[in-house]
């Protein structure tokens, strides 16, 4: 089987995950080994097989559109790393000219 060559930096960016150089090197080797094993799924002939997303299929469940009690602002914000009034405070999201 061909070893899988993974662009670790690209995947880490997609996953929003900062990795140290050591972590990158270790993951490159480990992910390649795991994916080699996982690629076994490709050995099974599945041309006429439907994929399964959920083991016990249920139709889409809807509940009546009736308001029920939910968390108030204080409870919802109680775990916030940073808040401003009744809002979550975050660093800059868009570039400022």
């Amino acid at each position, binding site marked *: 089987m061909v070893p899988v060559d993974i662009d670790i930096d690209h995947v880490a960016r997609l996953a929003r995950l900062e990795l140290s150089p050591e972590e990158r090197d270790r993951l490159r080797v480990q992910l390649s080994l795991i994916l080699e094993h996982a690629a076994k*799924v490709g050995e099974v002939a599945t041309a006429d097989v439907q994929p399964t997303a959920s083991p016990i299929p249920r139709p889409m469940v809807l509940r009546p559109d009736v308001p029920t009690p939910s968390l108030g602002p204080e409870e919802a914000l109680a775990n916030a790393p940073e808040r401003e009034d009744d809002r979550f405070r975050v660093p800059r999201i868009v570039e400022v000219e």
Partner: protein
Amino acid sequence: MSADELCDLRASELRSRLVRGEVSTVEIVESCLHRIEAVEGRVRAFLTPTPDVARAQAEAVAELARSDSSTVAGIPIALKDVLTTRGIRTTCASRILETYVPPYDCTAWARLSAAGSVLLGKTNCDEFAMGSSNENSAYGPVHNPWNLETVPGGSSGGSAAAVAAGEAVWALGTDTGGSVRQPAALCGVVGLKPTYGLISRYGLIAFASSLDTVGTFTRSVRDAAMLLSVLSGRDPMDATSLDHPGGDYTAALTGDVRGLRVGVVREAFGEGVEPGVRQAVQQAIERLEGLGASIGEASLPHTDYALSAYYLIAPSECSSNLARYDGVRYGLRVAGEDSVEMMMRTRGAGFGPEVKRRIMLGTYALSAGYYEAYYGQAQKVRTLVIRDYERAFETYDVLVSPTSPTTAFRIGERTDDPLAMYLSDVFTIPANLAGVPAISIPCGLDERGLPVGFQLTAPALGEELLLRVADALERELALDLVPELLRA
């Protein structure tokens, strides 16, 4: 120390004594707290013990515990720390949730609490329930009461060890690929993974949503049936919970297995299965035959492929579910110049090596150009695994196998080899992929004196049958298992 204190008794026995007025909830809770004090320094089963909560609840439920209207009232329990508890820290054994205090209860605990259960604390586990040895906890490993130098299994290792050591009478865990059954096997207790959707997962902090289930750790099959009777049933808060009435599962425990067709899974006796495991499991199968069950050979031909499919599906779902830890609404935040840098630093600092490995694996498997070859193909293999079970259950009522290829292994032995660690779950993973119920019960000890788990599997919603067979075998084996820790 001896293993015959209140905290070592089965819940069914304690319930009888409570109803007869021979013992009080306070006495049972104090017995557990006393045991925790005595052994916890060596076992490390708990991340957050809650003795004050336990004492207050013991007083509050005293009257309910004396009535016979509830099967769980007055019996103290430990909860895996991936199940949310209102006002009580819930960490998922991760740095990223080190200070997280949920504003709501998971449905499983809400139901138990309403029925008079008493909370002893939150148990250690692999970070976000990812692992098979409990070594992936950010707060250190759990030690197996049968041999403190070995792992308790995982991911629900703390719950399994707590029940084995008498620190809790019973416990809840979660099972995504074997995380209840495998630690139950390695710690010599009973571990039940019910049908996908039978127990609500509201408040179970998600790892792999198409596989996650809440499961139980108990000292007997009857105790598992008692817990399940309270936990099962539809919950409007969980869209995947089944329209199933639940009910009294202890009524199924007739002890009669005559004429039942038991299929021995051929693929679960290949190389890699330790001789001690093979021998104990085969002896248990002979005892089942002696009880009047008819034994035959069954086959789940896609067992090997199931493992590969699992290690694509679970990480893929994990990478999606764990995207919510972004340092914005709760949990750790590490400062950054802008939001993206803040998120990357937060996640880099907050997640441990195994969680990072699975997030990366899942992100890769779902990324453009690879989706069909990995995730798409794994979902098709999942269909074939389900067909394997459907075919096997045409011939057999239940399937049996070892729970795990090995007994407890040494701490540190497999940490450098993720693939060897993943193989711990080769016999438990197929039931998660298919959503069917399975249970592990102890069936003996290997040559090193470590417990061996016997797995039974039934068709979806076949819990009554599963528990009936497991209970009959448990009674027939009549094992008296006392971990080394309690023998001194």
